[in-house]
């Protein structure tokens, strides 16, 4: 009824392999893009930007990155926080060393630096799998946080040991620092999210994505039919870390402005992003968006409903959030390992026939 692919015929393989093969989906995608770029910047205010939109955009980038590694290539990683820290510190060093260079370049370079670090920590994946690899990436997490705490060069010898984002602009519009307008920070992050999502989609629908999924589904057979496991795993680590590095750089420079590495990029961050892709859906770009939106929205909704409307004590609401997230993780792992994305897919299948299911 709402969702029709009837009459939508493809006459070329190009049409058939596009991102949104169904016309309805394609138009909806254009509408979302138009609203996000054309309408939201005009109605945005500081509260909306800081409480919802910026964290959603940035976590979505991180979730896409982690999903490439875990969901598409099957290499479990608990080092997301550490890699985000690499992006943040790389961005900080670049911002302070080259104040005149555009922030776009800094953020991209920060992603590049993180990609290199990611490949280094991805090397053990050639020999170890699953649980053991997760522990190896956990070591990366703790090592990187320790490194940024202990080596003063990384925080430019500041007395507090923190890093603070200086004021920087893009084409004359201030992006970082306390004076940055909400719409500018929002648009800046949105541009990166849109770019990352398109790149991730292009990679996952083509040859590279197929080699990643082949390694994920059956690595021995993949190698026998011609997949180079070294190349597949390391490209997954590189691309994943690139996105996570960009997310880390944005999180520090645009969203928070000041970062104490142990607090912001600790192990909790790794788990938070991992929960996002588990709830959202492993192996799905849409799932990364859904998971990020869900986990960013949940505390806000709970606060509005629980504390403001029902008048519960705030500490109970805060703990309730942990209980709900924990329960959801268990439920999704048992009932629907492919997360919200799969629920969405099932809903679409049903809607195709609704209201005449037979």
């Amino acid at each position, binding site marked *: 009824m709402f969702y029709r692919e009837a009459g939508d015929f493809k006459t*070329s*393989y*190009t049409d*058939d*392999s596009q991102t949104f093969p169904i016309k309805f989906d394609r138009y909806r995608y254009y509408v979302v893009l138009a609203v996000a770029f054309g309408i939201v910047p005009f109605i945005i205010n500081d509260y909306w930007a800081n409480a919802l939109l910026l964290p959603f955009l940035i976590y979505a980038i991180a979730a896409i990155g982690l999903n490439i590694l875990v969901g598409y290539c099957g290499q479990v990683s608990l080092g997301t926080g550490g890699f985000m820290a690499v992006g943040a510190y790389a961005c900080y060093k670049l911002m302070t060393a080259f104040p005149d260079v555009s922030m776009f370049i800094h953020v991209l370079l920060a992603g590049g630096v993180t990609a290199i670090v990611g490949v280094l920590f991805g090397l053990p994946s050639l020999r170890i799998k699953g649980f053991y690899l997760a522990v190896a990436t956990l070591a990366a997490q703790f090592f990187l946080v320790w490194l940024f705490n202990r080596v003063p060069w990384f925080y430019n010898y500041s007395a507090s040991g923190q890093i603070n984002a200086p004021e920087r602009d893009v084409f004359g519009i201030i992006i970082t620092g306390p004076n940055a307008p909400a719409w500018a920070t929002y648009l800046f992050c949105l541009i990166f999210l849109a770019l990352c999502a398109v*790149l991730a989609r*292009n*990679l996952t629908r*083509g*040859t*590279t994505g*197929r*080699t990643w*999924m*082949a390694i*994920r*589904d*059956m690595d*021995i*057979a*993949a*190698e*026998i*039919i*011609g*997949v*180079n*496991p070294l190349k597949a795993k390391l*490209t997954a680590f590189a*691309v994943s870390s690139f996105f996570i590095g960009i997310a880390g750089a944005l999180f520090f420079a645009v969203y928070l402005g000041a970062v104490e590495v142990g607090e912001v990029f600790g192990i909790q961050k790794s788990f938070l992003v991992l929960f996002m892709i588990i709830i959202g859906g492993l*192996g799905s770009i849409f799932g990364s968006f859904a998971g990020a939106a869900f986990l960013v929205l949940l505390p806000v909704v709970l606060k509005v409903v629980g504390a403001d409307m029902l008048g519960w004590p705030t500490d109970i609401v805060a703990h309730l959030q942990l209980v709900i997230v924990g329960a959801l993780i268990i439920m999704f792992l048992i009932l629907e390992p492919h997360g919200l994305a799969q629920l969405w897919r099932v809903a679409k299948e049903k809607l195709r026939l609704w209201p005449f299911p037979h």
Partner: protein
Amino acid sequence: MLDSAEGYVTEDGRKIGGVVMEMKNITLRFGGVVAIKDISFDIREGEIRAIIGPNGAGKSSMLNVISGFYVPQEGEVWFHGSKRPPMRPYEVAQQGIARTFQNIALFEGMSVLDNVMTGRLGYMKTNIFQQALWKGKAEAEEVENREAVEKIIDFLEIQHIRKTPVSRLPYGLKKRVELARALAAEPRLLLLDEPMAGMNVEEKEDMSRFILDVNDEFGTTIALIEHDMGVVMDLSDRVVVMDYGRKIGDGTPHEVRNNQEVIDAYLGVSHD
């Protein structure tokens, strides 16, 4: 004995060419267990070569040696006239040897189309940056290879399940998809490990027809392992018989069938 350059003509009149692959004195050990003991045989251009033998004879190990998964302790593998140095399995695949597996080894999380497209990895030349941009070279390459894959899909009659996730398919179709994935590589040598295991008569007939058609239309050289003797005798041009890691027979189905050692291996010998 056959000369290595000269071919021969089969009973049904097909012309078989020179040697594609030659195994010379292969010995493969796992610790103290000798899986393959000093075996030599060749596979010729355009022929269907069967490897048979009772359970545990070392047939699958032999196929794994050919596809580079096992490296034999002794002996040489010659492919298209040159000795093959030790290489990783994916390098062997890039040389033009494709295979299917005894227990289906498809990528369960991917669609049939993606599985078959994975078979064409050797033809994908764009780098990761071109693929990230998609428009241009990567897209052109995708379309070009998609056309080749669609031909295989047509050939094996699996058009209707093109977009279906492999995990939803029944056993017989999975076997066919696996054959499609191997064929998509347009291999110079196709290895089939028990292509008919676990099938009913109808599915076996279908599969036999596909194997013959592949050999006939694409001229693909095929080496296969199979337990169903009727199928082996009907399909293959020459047969290698193994038992306990040794070669006990080699020749046309007719020769092998009348070989006393082969009969003993299959039926057993009385020890009185």
